[in-house]
């Protein structure tokens, strides 16, 4: 017998078994099939359970279910009511939290170095800086923060508090040869670094201790800025990153070609309030680009002032500043053959004339930053000292 017809016959037999018809009677009315008969007898045995639940067990189960339902309903209502009750508490906690943050922010805004809340103030500033994505906005914020540091130094000096400070601003030398940063006098002792006269007019970062006469300098470095954003060329041919004007010299290290719309990261020093000298330029997200990835840039700028050059028509000996820039560049490039890595070392020398400094005798100074705004000289060409001065003081 075919399985399909057996399936139908078996189904009929099951229905009759359900109707309590004996298996023997069912099979007598069906075509003779041993296998089907065995299955029907087996199915008849499977049908033997006709037990009914005990009424006690059923009642107990019902009670349990209703009790659970009541508890759940009560818990649901309780939670709703509890939430309503707790809502003002949440609001109160939130208000207190916001208020305390605001108050601590306001109070710490007046804090000075060495005071307990000064750490909070600096942390909030760091957070604010980290949250600022736009390069232009970041620079504006850095400017505000630099002004704040200067203000702190002035206040500490007026209070006569001796404290360690760190601040940035335009370095200037007056006619008496005295140095200052944003009006804060700089004083030196035997442990202070000596800096070159050519740094006059540069935007520098100073650390030191406040004394009655001024800030005793512990370190003085050119301030380096990092600019992230889109490279754009403006109508006059000059370049900008996110609207920040850049000056590009032939010593600018370009690790990516100058192309409109490229997403770049640049390191720069400040030439004026609104202009920056580009020191290096690289792709910000090289993985997305087909251009080579450049990493591991190490720069050492050694300034070795020498008095050997003769400049001008009058054959006058003047100090000449020689900058040796040693740059180690690790270049990762992907070729068809696989992954290659090269390291090249470049050495450049800029020779820049400086004017004689009657007050400070320049010494060997290693500045671990990029070169200041200096103009390169060429042999046989009339050399002129170039000193940039800030356009305006903060």
């Amino acid at each position, binding site marked *: 017998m075919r399985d399909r017809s057996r399936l139908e016959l078996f189904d009929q037999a099951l229905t009759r078994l359900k109707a309590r018809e004996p298996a023997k009677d069912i099979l007598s009315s069906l075509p003779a099939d041993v296998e089907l008969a065995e*299955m029907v007898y*087996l*199915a008849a045995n*499977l049908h033997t359970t006709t*037990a009914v*639940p005990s009424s006690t*067990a059923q009642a107990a189960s019902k009670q*349990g279910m209703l009790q*659970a339902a009541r508890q*759940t309903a009560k818990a649901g209502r309780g939670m709703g009511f509890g939430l309503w009750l707790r809502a003002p508490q949440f609001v109160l906690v939130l208000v207190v939290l916001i208020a305390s943050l605001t108050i601590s922010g306001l109070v710490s805004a007046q804090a000075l170095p060495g005071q307990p809340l000064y750490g909070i103030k600096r942390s909030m500033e760091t957070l604010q800086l980290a949250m600022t994505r736009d390069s232009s906005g970041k620079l504006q914020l850095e400017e505000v923060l630099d002004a704040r540091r200067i203000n702190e130094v002035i206040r500490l000096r007026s209070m006569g508090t001796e404290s360690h400070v760190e601040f940035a601003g335009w370095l200037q030398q007056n006619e008496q040869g005295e140095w200052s940063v944003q009006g804060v006098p700089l004083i030196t002792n035997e442990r202070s670094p000596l800096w070159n006269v050519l740094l006059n007019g540069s935007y520098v970062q100073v650390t030191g201790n406040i004394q009655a006469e001024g800030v005793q300098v512990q370190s003085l470095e050119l301030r380096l800025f990092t600019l992230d954003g889109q490279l754009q060329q403006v109508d006059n041919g000059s370049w900008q990153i996110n609207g920040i004007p850049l000056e590009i010299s032939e010593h600018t290290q370009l690790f990516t070609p100058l192309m409109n719309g490229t997403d770049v990261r640049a390191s720069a020093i400040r030439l004026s309030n609104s202009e920056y000298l580009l020191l290096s330029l690289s792709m910000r997200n090289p993985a997305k680009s087909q251009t080579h990835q450049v990493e591991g840039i190490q720069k050492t700028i050694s300034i070795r002032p020498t008095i050997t050059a003769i400049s001008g028509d009058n054959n006058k000996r003047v100090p000449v500043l020689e900058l040796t820039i040693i740059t180690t560049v690790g270049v990762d490039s992907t070729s068809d053959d696989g992954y290659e890595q090269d390291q090249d070392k470049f050495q450049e020398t800029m020779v820049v004339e400086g004017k004689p400094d009657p007050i400070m005798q320049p010494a060997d100074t290693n500045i671990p930053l990029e070169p200041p705004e200096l103009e390169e000289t060429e042999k046989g060409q009339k050399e002129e000292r170039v000193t940039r001065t800030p356009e305006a003081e903060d």
Partner: protein
Amino acid sequence: MLSEEKSASPETEDHQLLEKARQNDMQAIAMIHDRYYPKIWGFICYRISNQQVCEDIASDVFLRLIAQLKKRKGRIDHLGGWLMGTTHHLVMDHYRDLYKNSHSDLEGHSNLHSNESTHATVEDSIQFELLRDLLIELTDEQQLVLNLRFSRQFSLEETALVMKRSVGAVKLLQYRAVKSLQKLAKKRGLS
């Protein structure tokens, strides 16, 4: 054509009861219990001979229903299907626990057939007990289809709904299940 027994609770009534139960209507909850307890109990007892275990599992099914009604996720669409599915899982869990603990619980074995109808014989009962031991060797679906169909509670249509299959598929499945059981019984010399 098959003349299946008519469902005691139409699906629309189940939906209404479910909605009321969700709103903590105690009367609706009680009605659900009254309507489904015998079916669930029969379903469990078809597989488990220990009456105490049957009652515990049946109670557990309804407690799980209460918990499920409060959940926002996993809403119950078909009350009967959900209850039988849950019951089947609990029965299978019971067997898994038995295998893990490797002990045979003979206590309470079984006054299951104490209320049997007059035509049921002791011999039938013994035969059924032997067959029930073989059921566990069938596939999960085969066990479920036999359980639903032969605990005399579910029509083809209801079984199809619980198992989310067509009526034809259920027919084929039950046929294969009985055939497999028959082979197992022959192997054990039970035929």
